[in-house]
């Protein structure tokens, strides 16, 4: 019972981070129906940005958030204007494999620059501390990550639903041509979607640096969880991404505890597989 409780809580906390990683993917897919395979590599870039800023300037890791957000925002917009814009003209095969190419390019660029070593942060406000709450031990870094993730999620949700910019993004998602007639610069909106996708995953990267190893291939694992999350929640659905993220966190932690830690990721993919067979549009998709 105690094991279940502690797995549930840690699962929910991780789930909030998974939701944040999936958020960017959901925004990009929602606005232009393209899957960003390089999303995990954006996360990796965000992690390295945070890690190198923190160690290079020897500052508190949490203060590196703006740096990694900015870098990932620029990376997202850059990818759109330099690559994705051209991919959209081609068939689906080209769209898929084009972002695949981007993924491999960024990954091996990082490999060539930083080497394949695993790195960790050794100091920081949240690192290495935990609170004991009954039988449950919570690490500060996961708790802080979850809090900031939810805040970031809230900001994006508010922006998408309450601001003119969000409305314009939504309009572009629903019908590009009609949005263009209404005077929305759809090209800019699409670029912005990529920028936002990058920025949100940049936040996730900076947070993840607090308690996870930094290495060039870290993206693959998280992007696969993010794909499963987005598919579970429904492609393009922001609310769905959040709830599905929590479900993913629970599956990983509870499943990992009871089935065996080596199968926890297989469980996620299996869940995804079942969802996609029985409810292809996801929980909140349309």
């Amino acid at each position: 019972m105690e094991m279940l409780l502690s797995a549930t809580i840690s699962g929910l906390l991780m789930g909030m981070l998974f939701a944040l990683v999936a958020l960017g993917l959901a925004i990009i897919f929602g606005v232009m129906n393209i899957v960003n395979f390089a999303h995990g590599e954006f996360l990796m870039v965000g992690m390295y940005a945070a890690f190198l800023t923190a160690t290079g300037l020897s500052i508190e890791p949490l203060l590196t958030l703006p740096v990694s957000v900015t870098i990932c925002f620029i990376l997202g917009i850059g990818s759109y204007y330099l690559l994705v814009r051209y991919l959209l003209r081609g068939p689906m095969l080209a769209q898929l494999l084009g972002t695949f190419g981007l993924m491999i390019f960024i990954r091996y660029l990082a490999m060539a620059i930083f080497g394949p070593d695993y790195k960790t942060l050794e100091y920081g406000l949240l690192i290495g501390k935990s609170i004991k709450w009954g039988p449950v031990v919570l690490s500060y870094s996961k708790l802080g990550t979850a809090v900031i993730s939810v805040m970031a999620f809230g900001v994006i949700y508010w922006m998408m639903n309450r601001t003119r910019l969000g409305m314009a993004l939504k309009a572009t998602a629903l019908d590009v041509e009609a949005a263009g007639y209404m005077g929305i610069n759809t090209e800019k909106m699409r670029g912005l979607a990529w920028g936002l996708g990058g920025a949100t995953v940049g936040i996730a990267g900076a947070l993840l640096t607090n308690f996870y190893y930094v290495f060039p291939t870290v993206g693959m694992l998280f992007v696969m969880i993010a794909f499963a999350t987005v598919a579970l929640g429904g492609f393009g659905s922001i609310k769905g991404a959040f709830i599905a993220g929590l479900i993913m966190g629970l599956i990983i932690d509870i499943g990992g505890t009871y089935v065996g830690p080596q199968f926890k990721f297989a469980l996620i993919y299996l869940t995804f597989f079942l969802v996609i067979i029985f409810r292809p549009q996801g929980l909140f998709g349309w």
Partner: protein
Amino acid sequence: MPMKALKDALSFADLPASERIAFAVFFIFCLIFPWATKGSFAQAVMIQFLIFCLYGLGWNLIGGYGGQVALGQAKNVGMSAYTVALFMVWWDVPFWLSTPLGVIIATVESFILGYFLFRLKGHYFAIATICVSLVWQQLFVNWELIGGARGVELPLKETPNFVYMQFTSPIYYHYFAFVLVMAAILFMNWFRKSKLGYQLRAISSNEAVAESLGINIHWVKVKAYCITGVFAGMGGAFYAVYYNYIDPFSVMHLELSIMIALMTMIGGAGSMWGPIIGAMILIPMDRYLGAWLGAIGITGVDFMIYAFMVMIIAAYEPRGIWGIIEKARRKP
């Protein structure tokens, strides 16, 4: 009917003369290659090239002609390779018996998976195939009974042995792979003129129209996916006896599926020679440039060049290098 199929497979008459000449040159090159070169490294690269040709030709069917981005070739390769390897380790089953079984397993898996996954379209399908590959990959890495992450080593026979496909000289492997690739090319030559080929291309260019023409979309896709599984299964079985060692990272890994797809894309997805051109670029670059740069301490640059090419091709000429050749030919 079978006679006509055979005739279609053997007839290259509808191709332009330049293509026939290029194919003849390729054929002769592969035929004399083991005699023209002495380097064992070059021969190993050549055999790897042939294996990848086989994978690519198979993937081209579903990915190129069918336009369905299936990223799960590696699991079919792996299943067949593991069947061959484990049957030999456990029960000493010869290659020629275990290979058909491995191919059947790979094909049945493709059928079951295709049956369910082809309810999905486009990106959903692509991601679903990735997820399934990852489930298999994790399973194989953690399944101790079949060697887990350590992989399986095939026991060596005392003497070179045709029944177990164990030879001392790579020449035999070369010719075996060569025969497989030629069979695959002949099959593709039949395929592109067959009813299935036309149906698949119709689906790729417009699914709604194809359906309204009375094509059973789901069934055609599943069929094509099964054939892709056969190709991958053959490649996997050969891989197992050629390297005498397999592990989940070399035959089961998602990376392999991605490589196969990207290679075909670079060469020209949906064209007869695309996968071969792609393999011709990828494999030597990977082996020579990778080895050379690795020796001076730079890793991954070959992958970067490769990824860069993929991006350029995806953005400007989605039909790949073959598309560029065709464009140049039409504009004299």
